[in-house]
């Protein structure tokens, strides 16, 4: 069931158009991630959808234009907790107090949320003395205590350190699944989107580039910019050489590669998208493998990234692979080494060269 629908929505800030959305719907119970780089207009879109910014166009809640009562059926959590100089319990109960709920039931409700988020012990403390993670939990509790029909989360983890962020992400995921709250999560972090979202809407330059199930956005991005943003570092120009029912053969510089993806009709000039995690590096080609594509390459750069090693290869064109640190040690990789990069024909995603 569609709970929120935006049509031809335009958001202006400081007289400048920052977001234009032709059509966006939100289905009851789902979590939609608004994903995009900084300055893409994600927060502006979320504020507009929450009824907190004036907009042009149509915004319908349960099939009716939003009215003054809409803001009492939604709640929003921002990057900073923005707590008041009161006890933690009073902060969590704030939204209920604004709605005129008497003290006893609103405190009971606040205590339930504090318990759900694992911070019951903080209930009587001043909210201004909390750590960043504790304060953000209280902020989430304050929003969830309202049992909102729609919950907006505007980069709620962005200011937190990694361990705190992971803990909160996990607890929030559990809370959202438990409550079935329809949620819009604003984030520039792919891991947050992957971990929480059912669908992802990618926003670049104030325009929605792709709205699709999370898995689809990350494996079959709609265009090169979306591909780059969802972590597909290898977006290579290619030419269709031949195509059969089983395989397409593409020209990639001086090389040919085989892919199972069907080229977009009517366009021989393509972009070949390969995730760095899907590239396998070997010292030689000797071992038999099901990978249809093997390319001789030279290691240009090795960089540690999180728990992996980012390997930049020169194959006549640049290619990036992510491998484990253990694999890099086992292979004894050094910059300048000659290696073989391979990938399966089923891996690449094909995009038209020109955006449609």
């Amino acid at each position, binding site marked *: 069931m569609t709970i929120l629908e935006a049509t031809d929505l335009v958001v202006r800030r400081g007289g400048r158009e920052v977001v234009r959305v032709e059509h966006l719907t939100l289905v009851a119970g789902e979590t939609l991630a608004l994903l995009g780089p900084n300055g893409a207009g994600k927060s502006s879109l979320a504020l507009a959808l929450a009824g907190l910014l004036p907009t042009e166009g149509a915004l319908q809640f349960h099939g009716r234009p939003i009215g003054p009562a809409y803001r009492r059926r939604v709640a929003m959590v921002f990057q900073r907790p923005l707590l*008041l100089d009161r006890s933690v319990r009073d902060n969590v109960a704030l939204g209920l107090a604004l709605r005129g709920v008497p003290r006893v039931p609103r405190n009971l409700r606040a205590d339930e949320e504090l318990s759900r988020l694992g911070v019951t012990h903080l209930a009587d403390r001043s909210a201004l*003395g909390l750590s960043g993670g504790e304060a953000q939990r209280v902020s989430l509790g304050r929003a969830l205590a309202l049992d909102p029909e729609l919950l907006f989360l505007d980069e709620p983890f962005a200011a937190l350190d990694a361990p705190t962020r992971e803990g909160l992400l996990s607890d929030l995921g559990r809370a959202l699944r438990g409550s079935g709250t329809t949620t819009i999560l604003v984030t520039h972090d792919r891991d947050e989107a992957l971990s929480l979202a059912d669908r992802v809407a990618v926003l670049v330059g104030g325009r929605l580039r792709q709205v699709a199930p999370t898995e689809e956005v990350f494996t079959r991005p709609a265009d090169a910019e979306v591909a780059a943003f969802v972590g597909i570092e290898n977006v290579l120009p290619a030419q269709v050489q031949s195509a059969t029912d089983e395989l397409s053969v593409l020209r990639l510089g001086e090389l040919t590669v085989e892919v199972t993806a069907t080229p977009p009709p009517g366009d021989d000039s393509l972009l070949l998208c390969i995730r760095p995690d899907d590239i396998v590096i070997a010292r030689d080609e000797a071992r038999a493998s099901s990978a249809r594509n093997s390319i001789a390459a030279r290691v240009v750069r090795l960089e540690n990234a999180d728990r992996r090693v980012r390997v930049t290869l020169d194959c006549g064109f640049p290619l990036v692979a992510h491998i484990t640190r253990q694999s890099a040690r086992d292979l004894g990789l050094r910059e300048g080494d000659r290696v073989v990069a391979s990938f399966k024909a089923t891996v690449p995603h094909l995009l038209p060269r020109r955006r449609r």
Partner: protein
Amino acid sequence: MDLILSGLGEAIVRILRFDPEVMDAAGASLAISGTATLVSVALGLPLGIWLGLGRFRGRGLLLALMNTGMGLPPVAVGLFVAVLVWRSGPLGGLDMYCTRAAMITAQVLLAAPTVIGLTAVALQSVDPMLRLQLAALGATSRQSAWIVARETRLLLLTAVMAGFGAVISEIGASLMVGCNVRGDTRILTTAIALDTSKGEFGAAFALAFILLGIIFALNAVTTWAQQHRRPA
């Protein structure tokens, strides 16, 4: 030096004996300046909140006027009010000249800009995102303004204290519109000036000690409130 020491001694004796003239002046000061401060707060807090939180054309000009008002010379205000309430002036029919009402009016004109200006500054110091957060929790504009004002309560207390401090220690306006009538419009500052001019330093010192005591008490209350704030 002897003059100062004898004056101090006499002052202590007058205070300990609750000298009627000294007590009358102290009582009049507290009543007049207290009333003027209450009126200034009643007018100034809502106006300051409106100026601090509002977004409208001319707001900058109003803020500049309030800032100018904080530095108004009391004698200029006294002159303005005196002309207004003078028997042949526009408000002459109210028969306010040389009354406490005229003094309160003058002191309101002195204290209100301070209360309004400092209230606006206090409200502007609040993170603008807080208002957005309150709106996102369903707060009405009025609820939001009340909560934001409550969050700045210590700064608002400072604004009120500054307003009271500005009028309890002024002399020019009170002398010009109150006429320093003994037992009625004679307040601490005008009494000090009169006793000094007559060479009655003991009485002047006693009055000055009480005035300083009131100002110290004000600052002590403000400081205590600031120091007992919960950890930030």
